[in-house]
């Protein structure tokens, strides 16, 4: 774990740490916690590193790399016996009461624990408490070492040098783990790609730290991280970048957004990559007009609010462009009316919904899965929508493309739900396979339409499937209309009761078609043995912790299987009913107060779901707490509703 004040380089150092481990052949899972603040509040990264695949974080810390006192105060007692704390000895005498950013109740509980052990309230005291529990302490005189670096580069400004303490902390940790320093320096080079001198100075800092640690602490920490040979191609991805790349691949060419945490990083990524290189094989006749055009582009528009974001994206959809907007709860709340218009006018549009802790402004930088039921019913009246939720970055990637396919195929809005934990986790993945991706535009027509000029086109013509031919607005040779009012097949307002029923049926039928057409493999995942003591029901990013926890339980001989719902609307009722009616004990696992998926499932299947593990303190589920809770269900000692509360 690496911590420090927001804006002091925690991000960068964690990134370097994780990237180095990943380059060293390890699987990495990184989780970021931060306040809704720009500078000063405490932020930390938890990086889990393993030679086996990992999908979640754990609560206990093996090694705490710090460069400020707050990190030590907050996390020292989370370090497990035999773990290590790297810190700046210059800060030893800092007092707990002088750290303004620690909450009162957190301070009080620390003071209590310290005084119970007869200790005072300095950083030294808390370190002492950790040491008593068996934690190894590694003071590293950052500034002294940095001065050496400064000399080499002719840099004497202490404030400039101090900006490198974050990397020093990382380097110290790696030195203690006898990690190959060249890999670390390589990672530094990648992260500081655009700042040559900074990269070099930080690399020099690595060397200085390594020699200090080797000299002073050689071998004293019992663990090492030797490089691992990897046979697969891997990437190191973050959630919002994953979405961004998938959107470009999916052919999204208009992205609108209004800034909001944790969604806007995706849009900023897209903006930075707005020029899109096209695979334009010369000689392919249908691409003739493009012969000279090597580049396409995705227009990213920062709008004045989320109402404009959704309606502008719909405008793009009308014009035949795959369009989307990304937002989080408060912004999504403002999109209700726009979504309804898209549903009424059968416009394909994708909303990527990054859940964060609500209600209202809530905890903008914290994790939750609290928007499911709202997403299922956003907007007045009844219109079809497709709601899908991804469980990990690989799913995020492929589902993003599918969202656009569904939107165009079924001509309706698609809400793709992810969350803060996915958006901000950095994970190693096997290289994503672009060849698996296919684009399906349904019966969309762009370009010329074969008929006379100005012919009124029945855009909403009744069909067997409810899906009508869709020439983009602007298609030559035809015209038609759109309106949020109930309308006839040309899109003109109609209040006729007979037409009304036809049109409602037409729109809603599309969901039945979607339900029939979308393969089960895109709707659900089922993990584990057919027969199990417990069947876990869940959705979204709890997937990681669940899979890790059931691995642990399996090792103890407790069989748990897991039904993950990915397509939440239309709901795969039949399959889910089958699985759940065979289940011995169903346990619903969700990051929200009510167990929203359980409610949905009960509505659809009428199978009572009595047992729930929920969490709503804004921190993702850790593997351990989930493991313990599931175990208590297996052992029959759990109440029907277990609330998890770990995390700081």
């Amino acid at each position, binding site marked *: 774990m690496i911590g420090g004040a927001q804006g002091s380089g925690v991000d960068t150092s964690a990134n370097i740490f994780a990237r180095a481990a990943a380059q060293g052949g390890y699987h990495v899972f990184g989780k970021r916690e931060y306040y809704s603040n720009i500078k000063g509040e405490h932020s930390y990264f938890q990086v889990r590193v393993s030679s086996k695949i990992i999908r979640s974080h754990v609560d206990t810390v093996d090694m705490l790399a710090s460069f400020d006192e707050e990190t030590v105060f907050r996390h020292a007692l989370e370090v497990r016996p035999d773990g290590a704390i790297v810190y700046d000895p210059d800060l030893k005498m800092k007092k707990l009461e002088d750290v303004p950013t620690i909450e009162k109740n957190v301070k009080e509980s620390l003071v209590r624990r310290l005084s119970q052990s007869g200790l005072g309230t300095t950083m030294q005291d808390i370190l002492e408490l950790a040491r008593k529990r068996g934690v190894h302490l590694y003071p590293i005189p950052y500034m002294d070492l940095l001065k050496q670096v400064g000399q080499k580069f002719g840099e004497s400004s202490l404030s400039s040098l101090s900006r490198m303490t974050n990397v020093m902390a990382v380097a110290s940790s790696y030195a203690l783990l006898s990690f190959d320093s060249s890999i670390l320096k390589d990672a530094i080079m990648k992260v500081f790609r655009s700042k040559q001198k900074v990269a070099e100075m930080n690399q020099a800092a690595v060397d200085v730290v390594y020699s200090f640690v080797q000299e002073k602490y050689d071998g004293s920490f019992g663990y090492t991280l030797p490089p691992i040979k*990897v046979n697969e191609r891997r990437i190191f991805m973050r959630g919002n970048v994953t979405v961004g790349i998938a959107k470009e691949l999916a052919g999204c060419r208009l992205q609108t957004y209004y800034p909001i945490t944790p969604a806007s990083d995706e849009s900023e990524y897209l903006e930075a990559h707005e020029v899109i290189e096209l695979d334009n094989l010369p000689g392919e006749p249908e*691409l003739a007009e493009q012969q000279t055009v090597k580049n396409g*582009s995705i227009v990213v528009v920062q709008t004045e609010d989320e109402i404009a974001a959704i*309606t502008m994206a719909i*405008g793009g959809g009308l014009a035949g462009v795959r*369009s989307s907007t990304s937002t989080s709860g408060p912004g999504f709340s403002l999109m209700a009316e726009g979504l309804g218009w898209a549903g009424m006018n059968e416009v394909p549009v994708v909303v990527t919904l990054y859940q964060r802790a609500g209600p209202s402004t809530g905890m903008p930088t914290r994790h939750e899965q609290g928007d499911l039921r709202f997403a299922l019913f956003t907007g007045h009246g009844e219109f079809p929508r497709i709601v899908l939720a991804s469980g990990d970055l690989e799913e995020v990637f492929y589902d993003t493309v599918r969202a656009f396919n569904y939107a165009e195929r079924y001509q309706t809005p698609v809400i793709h739900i992810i969350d803060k934990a996915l958006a901000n986790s950095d994970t190693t993945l096997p290289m994503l396979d672009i060849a698996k991706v296919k*684009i399906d535009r349904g019966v969309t027509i762009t370009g010329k339409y074969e008929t006379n000029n100005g012919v009124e086109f029945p855009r909403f013509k009744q069909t067997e499937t409810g899906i009508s031919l869709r020439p983009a607005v*602007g298609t030559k040779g035809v015209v038609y209309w759109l309106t949020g009012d109930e309308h006839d097949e040309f899109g003109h307002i109609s209040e006729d009761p007979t037409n009304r029923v036809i049109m409602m049926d037409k729109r809603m039928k599309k969901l039945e078609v979607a339900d029939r057409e979308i393969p089960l493999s895109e709707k659900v995942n089922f993990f584990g043995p057919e027969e199990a003591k417990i069947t876990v029901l869940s959705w979204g990013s709890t997937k990681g912790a669940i899979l890790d926890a059931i691995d642990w339980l399996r090792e103890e001989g407790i069989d748990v299987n897991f039904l993950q719902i990915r397509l939440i609307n239309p709901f795969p009722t039949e399959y889910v009913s089958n699985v759940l009616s065979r289940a011995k004990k169903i346990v619903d696992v969700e990051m929200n107060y009510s167990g929203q998926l359980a409610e949905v499932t009960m509505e659809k299947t009428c199978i009572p779901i009595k047992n729930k593990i929920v969490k709503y303190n804004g921190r993702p589920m850790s593997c351990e707490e989930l493991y313990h809770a599931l175990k208590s269900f297996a052992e029959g000692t759990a109440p029907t509703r277990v609330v998890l509360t770990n995390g700081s």
Partner: protein
Amino acid sequence: MALKLTDLKTNVHNDWCPGCGDFGILNAVQMALAEMNVEPSNVVIVSGIGCSGKMPHYIKTYGVHTLHGRLLPFASGIKIANPNLEVVCVGGDGDGMGIGAGHFVNSGRRNLDMAYIVHDNGVYGLTKGQASPTLKLGMKTKSLPKPNINQAVNPLLLAIASGYTFVARGYAYDVRHLKELIKKAINHKGFAFLDVLQPCPTYNDILTKEYWAGEDNLDPSGKPVPRVYKLEETGYDGVVHENTEEEIERKVAQAVLKSFEFGDRTPIGVFYQNEFTPTYEERLNSRMPTYRTYPPAMQRIARDDGTPLAKVQKLLDELSLT
């Protein structure tokens, strides 16, 4: 082949009240489009909600009847996706400056190459005559139980403050003049705002056709003196001719002062026009050099077999560990 007026008419029953100023605006729009000889399927009329919002259904081009107050972002999305289209926005004053005021202001900041015609009738027509944002403080139309409690917004001043690069006013019953203004607005390079005085005989018994015709405003000889006059007939020139800060500020200031005139002498015509401000499309193009030649709506995204065309492998490789 020249476009005839009838080519632009649908056979949808028009259900505006008899005598509504909206008819004048509809005619002017159709006449302008016919004279410009547009290709109907290259034109999109985007409207909000209100009596005015029904207009697209009467015009035989693409028509998008959107949500109350949201016509501008809808229209912007269409235009950005396909800058080759001629996008004309039409909406009510409540739609544009009440619920839609946020988009009104912020769309001015973008300067997309579109036109926006506001039906300025001082009331919320379709919901039975409540005060709209352009109704003056204290006015009591027949539809209001009490005098209007809010100050009016001056649409022209608001448009100027919001950065519209063309700001004009027309009058619904001077169809010929209005038609010319609409052509200018559409031809203007940038976002053009056109406020149209639109009598609503059903609810607004103050700013009526008779009022604008000056039937109660007699000259010494007893002849009615119309309350609207044409800016161009007074030698007023709202156009920015040189791209200098002074010229622009001078023309803006002139337009602001002019915009205060209302009532017995109410100017119609072009208050301000500046084509030197780059359009949003130009700004996009400077960032994405193929934007204009190969805009989103024209881009192919996949081969016929569904293979995507975007080469994102490069982006993945950047994140690759080997």
